[in-house]
């Protein structure tokens, strides 16, 4: 018998069906990451794996245990034998919990959808012994849960996503700067947001993250109604997050709205592409498991291709 989950229970974000669907997948970093335990991801440092990397001339201070005597016997020079090190992934989920994320027609609004996606990803990461952390934000960074690899860390992540009084977004650049500063070393950053912010500071924020060599994923969550704008009759649109109100006949503005939306999406997508950021637009009526599967497969393909290219 299934246990009924309460609406304010943080575990509501962890949808078992979705988790089951993506359980056999794994999330890999596209580039090397700096982990603290050995794992499935390449480390920027040399380690003790069986994968030979290179020979290096011996210098003072090197551990003589790594000398390659075969080379010394042939060349009478000291070379040190170096191997690739493998580490675990440190992934930070940056989830937008601002007021605009709470728009949605039905039980799954953008906030719920985004949090569900974040929870699933965290669960998947922890299951593959990667470490996952979370940063939630609205007008400022609201909670920061550092990355941990323990499965018991999951509850902390879920707790962090739960919020009761959403607030508006203001300065996305400062928020992303804060995020950048709060993540030590290179790792993976997954941003889940509706991105209803100014484009320029957002792109700048992404650039900052890129400079830190983070592997960045952007899940752009929009509500179905924001895509179709199906309103009829005189309607007073009350802007969230300090936006003005507008009384209008929505039928008359629909085309213009969709056009502006499309421009915006193009601009965001283009900015992400330019920075090498993986961008995924999702709508709240999309099946989350399908979206995640598709996205993870896509990343795996990209990683394999880049490996072969090397």
């Amino acid at each position: 018998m299934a246990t009924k989950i309460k609406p304010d229970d943080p575990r509501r974000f962890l949808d078992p069906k979705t988790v089951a669907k993506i359980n056999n997948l794994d999330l890999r970093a596209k580039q090397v990451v700096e982990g603290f335990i050995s794992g499935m991801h390449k480390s920027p440092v040399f380690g003790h794996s069986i994968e030979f990397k290179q020979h290096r001339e011996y210098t003072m201070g090197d551990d003589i245990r790594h000398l390659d005597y075969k080379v010394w016997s042939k060349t009478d020079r000291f070379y040190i034998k170096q191997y690739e090190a493998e580490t675990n992934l440190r992934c930070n989920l940056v989830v937008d919990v601002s007021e605009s994320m709470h728009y949605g027609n039905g039980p799954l609004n953008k906030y719920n959808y985004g949090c569900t996606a974040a929870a699933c990803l965290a669960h998947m990461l922890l299951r593959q012994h990667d470490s996952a952390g979370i940063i939630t934000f609205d007008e400022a960074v609201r909670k920061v849960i550092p990355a941990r690899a323990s499965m018991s860390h999951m509850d902390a992540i879920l707790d962090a996503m739960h919020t009761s009084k959403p607030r508006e977004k203001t300065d996305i650049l400062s928020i992303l700067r804060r995020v950048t500063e709060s993540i030590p070393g290179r790792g993976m950053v997954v941003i889940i947001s509706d991105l209803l912010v100014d484009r320029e500071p957002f792109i700048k924020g992404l650039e900052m993250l890129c400079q830190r060599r983070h592997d960045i994923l952007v899940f752009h969550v929009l509500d179905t109604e924001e895509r179709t704008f199906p309103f009829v009759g005189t309607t007073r649109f009350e802007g969230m997050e300090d936006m003005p109100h507008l009384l209008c006949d929505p039928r008359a503005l629909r085309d213009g709205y969709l056009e502006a939306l499309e421009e915006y999406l193009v601009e965001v997508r283009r900015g992400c592409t330019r920075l090498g950021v993986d961008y995924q637009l999702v709508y709240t009526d999309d099946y989350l498991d399908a979206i995640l599967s598709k996205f993870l497969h896509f990343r795996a393909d990209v990683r394999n291709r880049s490996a072969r290219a090397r």
Partner: protein
Amino acid sequence: MEFFAHPWYMAAGGLLVSAPILIHLINRMRFKRVRWAAMEFLLKSQKRNRRRMIIEQLILLLLRILLVLLAAFLVARFLYGGTGPRGATHVVIVDDTLSMNDAGKQGEESSSAFNTAIVQVKKVARNASKAASAQYMRIFLLSELDKSPIFDARLGDGSEREIDEAFVKRGNKPTLLAGSPMSGLERGQKYFSDMKSDQGQKFIHLVSDFRDRDWTTGPDAEKVSEVLRSILDAGVNLNLIDTAAPSRTPNSKVANHHDNIAIVDLKAESRVAVEDSDIEFTASVMNLGQAEGRTFLKVYINGEESPGSDTVLEKIAPNSKVEHKFTLRFNSKRKGTEINPKDGPEERERKRRLEREYNVIRVALQREEVGLNADNVRDLVLEVRKKVPTLVVDGNKPEGRSDGGDMSHLAAFYAASGIYEVEERRLEDLAKSDLDLYPGVILLNVAELPEAAIKKLQSYVNNGGSVTWFLGEETKADHFNTALFNAGLFPVLLEDRPYDPFAAQGIADPEQRKKLRDAARQTDPKPKILFPDATNVLVQRLAPAQGLFRYLGINVYWKARVRSTWDPDGRQTKPLVVLPNTQSMDVFKGRALSLMESAAAAVTKLAAKEEEYRKYLPLMDEYKTRTVRNAIATGELFALAEALDSLLNSQQQLNDKREETRPSMTSLWQQVDLKPLADEIREFRERVLFGDPLVVSRTVGKGRVLAMLTPAGTNLRKGVGEDGVQWNNWGAGDRIVSNLYPLFLLDVHRFMISEGQAPNRVLGEETTFAVDAARYMPDVSYTFEPQPDVSVAAAKIEPEREKGVMEKQENLLSFALKDVKRPGVFRVTLTQLGEGPLEDRQETRAYAYNVDATAESDLKRAGRERLLPDLPPGDAKRGKLALLTPTESFDQFQEKTPDASESPWIYLFFILILVVEQAMAVHLSYHLKGNENAPPASSPPVAA
């Protein structure tokens, strides 16, 4: 707002124009609230589309306003045809004449044309009262055109009831009078021409049965087009509403009518019957139906059925008349006082008045199921006298009153006749005489008449009396040509002096003239007088003996001027005796020959076409080459006339074996192609044969005047250029001619009392008479015995008794019977002043009133083309002429002026605006595009 039939609708529409704006404003107040995240794009869209949206919304708003305006425009009915209703005046002429009694079946009940007319008048009033403007209606009855209208008011809600009451007051029945719809139309036209203020549109509605006689064949038919045109040209709309049964179908040119059999005339051979002598009556029964008719006729005398008078009139052909003749004999029941020779003129007149007695002869046909029954009864009043008195005035000077003088011949005649008696008066006493007592007045060789006598005679003749003139040497042509001719008392215009044919030939010697006259009588075989109309009462007994008149000598007479001067159309007078033509043959020769050429050519042409006429070719050749030419060669016009007579009238000749030796010329000329030519030859023959008129009659009023242009006497008198000449020898010439003279005088008297039906009138006619106030009491009593309905013929109707007082004018008491609307017999009893029992002083006069069957009984209806003739084009203001039937709604009288709601273009425009508005509304509203899905009703599941 005056441009709209319903201006208030337009005002309301004007207010409604704001409805779309109000809806817009209300909608703005009623809105949904949506908290919206992606406001940025919405604001951007709003900023971009702001101007376009405002314009589009404004256009949509304007279109919707326009739609409301158009709807209001249609409902308010914009009057583009003019300035809107200006009111109308409806003059309704309702035909209430006899023919409107004709009833047709409407469902179970039968309704007369008049009852249908009432319904139609109310229908017009009902529809007209619905008009927005002032509508006035005046209803005239055709029988009361000179009176005020029976309804005269502005139409409103109660008008229909008032009209109903007006007709109920008149019994809801038509009269039995005759009347012409033309007079009704002229009354309507006069009404509008007299109208000073403009009361908008003008309508004349003639509600009638539109009989053929009134519109096509009757006396008023000629002026139909003229009357219609003058009405329409005056801008009056004329509606002819046909209420006769069966109903006229909208497009048929002719309309069916009911059959009818009517007594169109009842007359006695004499206006005055002599006691114990036979009088022949003629009842003319006409079948005015479309099928052969049969009816049953009865005769009543003074209300009692005449024994053995029942007659069945079988097989009366359609549109033909049957004359039923019957003879009756009357006895005077009144004990008159014998006239003593010693009685003075006044005493004689008094006694004559008391002996007057009238009998009522009534002829009735059986009742008809369809058609009119009022014309199935006809009355005749006949005066019965012991002897018929004739007033004679001798204008001769005393020396002229010798043997053979005018009076001597008449005295001999009266002495011998037994039924006529003479009452001789001096000329100066003529004005004092009670002429009404005498059926005829004879004036012998009178020089001139005093003014009073002329007036008296004029009145006498107009009321049915007869005056006969015998001229003589005393006659003053000037007086006759002016005073008497103008008064209608003398029928011709005379030359200035008497005419002697031999004197005219320049033979001045009286002796020579005498010899020539004798020679003419003895040797000339031609008759000296001729009878153009041998069937006339005056000459019908003389005409067979025409050959004997070769011995007659008309030596001197008053020559009439050319006939066109006294009878321009040749219909007013009737020459009954004429002299032979004395003109030269040269005058007629050329015409005779050319007519023969034409006749021969016509017969040849006919023979070429039809073989049976070939037998006439040799005969025509004989007439052309021999008979007529030989007659011309004799130089005798009489011979030419006889040749022409033979050409026209010679009968078939058979030999012993009954084989035709000579075909009938009468049959030849009956051929349709030859009839015009035959008429031409007949007329030419009369011109050839007939010379100066000798006896001429003229109908004046109800009476007649007769003029003999030569004296009654045969004594010697002043002639033309000789002192003693016998103007004619009819009364004292050869015995064979003089024997015919008393017959002529008898026929003159018969002529004077024949035909004229003085006491018999048709309804609507007025009867007036005046009596000497010194001889009569002013009180008068009279009875009216109405004609019975034929269905109750057996019932004896009690006479209605009335009393009155005669009106005194100077020395006369006058009495008038006016507005007689029911057929029947009036008996007016006057009482003479004096002593003695009242009965011995009372005299009675009777007058019979009948329906005018000639004018009203023919129910045949006028064709559509006759009622709606093609009139020459008029100006734009000309009124409209329409023929309406009871089946129509008459809603045109609601005074609808052409409005926008009648135009298809306005609807097209409306639809166009509607389509544009819808297109605009669709364009401005939210619709899914082809590749879009409708938004989900609820959120999708998170996992598939």
